[in-house]
């Protein structure tokens, strides 16, 4: 496993470096280049030139990249045009809230998806399976924002069960203390993941049920319920760990939409506001953080997978 982990970590490091290259390249595509991004759109051409010279932006690109990387490593992501704060400070404030939203959604998705998937596998070809399959396809095809709007119309506007605005508290604790306001954003974000994970669980359980080891377990006299619990589920769900990593980008994209719909003060809303106001330092800062989060997230899920699966765990 050590070899696997070493290899996987090295790969992640390379990818992280490339992510920074991509963001660096985007930075240079900005109108007016990085000088405008830092000094703001109203700076005079002289100021820009002076800045470029001072910051070394008139040097060759590779040198600039090294410089940029050095700044990144000290945690310097520049300053927001609009918020009068460093990007790092804003992110430190917003990131935890987004983690709460996505974490709750993932948890909800897993809790719903696994039993649904198992149910479908056990009832394969029957009505329940067909209905749930249809529902999953529908959920696949429904964009997060349409789903959110429908939920708002029905549960907030018509039934007045849940508020249409997410909790606005400043702290994570404050957000969690208003669960009613969390329901709609979390459900909106979770539903697509439920569809994907329940489809996965269904096919993984079906695959495992047709494996020889299940026949062996039956030949030992195990009941179907215990075979499912003791043998099949474990094998079917271990790969779910790495699937989680694969779904991180989807989840983060979803949180961008959900946060801006429900006015949830997380990283997604920050990003959306930055896009509306052309606040490039924030925009690129968030992009970088999101990229890093995805890489690290999938690294961790892969490690979890390796730890859970003895076939990988015990290989030296």
């Amino acid at each position: 496993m050590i070899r696997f982990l070493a290899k996987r970590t090295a790969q992640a490091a390379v990818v992280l470096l490339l992510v920074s290259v991509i963001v660096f390249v985007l930075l240079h595509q900005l109108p007016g280049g990085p000088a405008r991004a830092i000094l703001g759109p109203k700076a005079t051409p002289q100021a820009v030139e002076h800045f470029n010279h001072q910051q070394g932006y008139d040097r060759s690109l590779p040198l600039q990249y090294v410089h940029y990387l050095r700044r990144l490593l000290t945690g310097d992501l520049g300053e927001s045009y609009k918020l009068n704060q460093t990007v790092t400070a804003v992110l430190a404030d917003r990131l935890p809230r987004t983690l709460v939203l996505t974490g709750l959604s993932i948890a909800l998705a897993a809790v719903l998806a696994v039993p649904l998937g198992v149910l479908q596998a056990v009832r394969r070809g029957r009505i329940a399976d067909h209905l749930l399959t249809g529902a999953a396809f529908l959920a696949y095809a429904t964009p997060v924002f349409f789903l959110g709007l429908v939920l708002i119309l029905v549960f907030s506007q018509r039934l007045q069960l849940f508020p249409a605005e997410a909790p606005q508290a400043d702290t994570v604790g404050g957000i969690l203390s208003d669960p009613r306001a969390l329901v709609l954003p979390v459900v909106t974000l979770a539903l697509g993941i439920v569809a994907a994970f329940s489809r996965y669980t269904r096919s993984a359980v079906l695959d495992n049920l047709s494996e020889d080891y299940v026949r062996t377990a039956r030949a030992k006299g195990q009941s179907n319920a215990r075979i499912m619990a003791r043998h099949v589920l474990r094998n079917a769900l271990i790969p779910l760990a790495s699937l989680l990593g694969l779904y991180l980008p989807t989840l983060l994209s979803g949180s961008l939409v959900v946060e801006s719909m429900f006015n949830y003060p997380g990283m997604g809303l920050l990003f959306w506001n930055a896009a509306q106001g052309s606040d490039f330092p924030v925009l690129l800062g968030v992009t970088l953080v999101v990229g890093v989060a995805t890489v690290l997230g999938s690294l961790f899920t892969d490690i979890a997978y390796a730890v859970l699966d003895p076939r990988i765990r015990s290989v030296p």
Partner: protein
Amino acid sequence: MTAAGSVSAAPATPGPGRRALAVFTRDKPALAGAVVLVALMAFCFLGPLIRPTDQVHTDLGRANLPPGSPGHPLGTTDLGYDMLGRLMTGGQTSLEVGLAAGLLATFIGTVYGAVAGYFGGWLDAAMMRITDAALAIPALFLLVVVATIVTPSKPVLTLIIASVAWLSPARLIRGEALALRSRDYVHAMRLMGGGGTRAVFRHIVPNAIGTVIVNATFQIADAILYVAYLSFLGLSIPPPAADWGSMLSTGITYTQVGYWWLIFPPGIAIVLVVAAFTFLGDGLRDAFDVRLQRTRRNRR
């Protein structure tokens, strides 16, 4: 010497294309998907010819009429556009950009993936790390950054989406090429003295084409969604042009007053077209899977 006689004088077996068609036409969801797509295309592109409406000039006097109002079966928008007509013109943008971007992304991804997979080694590793990195940044974030830098028009929007969407077909086709390259029938051909060109065009491409076509349908569905997401976030083609996503984004302002007709028509249209492409792709996947056909045939 007698060989087994099950291969008799029956007529020649139909080719893979014919067989795929036969499987496909038996697949009801896929057929339904195809029918819905044709209907939606006709609605968006032929509809305005039959029922022309003014989608350029606002008419605030007739704003926010509910469905069933005289002359406006689906009501009007907040700026007084006829909803039915706007659904048609908006659909044109969604479908045109979605189709073009999806196909472009598939093309770029296929070429990139095939090169990486066929040549393998260091080139492959380097090319794949690049896609890994680009895929690490969620597509929507990349799209938003790019859309903020440039002002979208239809062609620009197509390019932006394709520039992000090609990544996943690239990975897929790369895996396919990698697998096909080491198939025994490619080895067999090489042992006859055949070269790389023959391997690629006679064996790898024909066997990968199914995957490519199937993936294209999924890419188109994705691209349509991306258009919608961007418009929803207010980063698409500026008004008075519209697409289904921007129509929905208008609707969000009026949820609290309950103007549901601003939301459901474009939302349902998006769901329909994406679901139709997904079913179509699923059906095509089954139709192209030779192995699947074989197991169906030989199922005990």
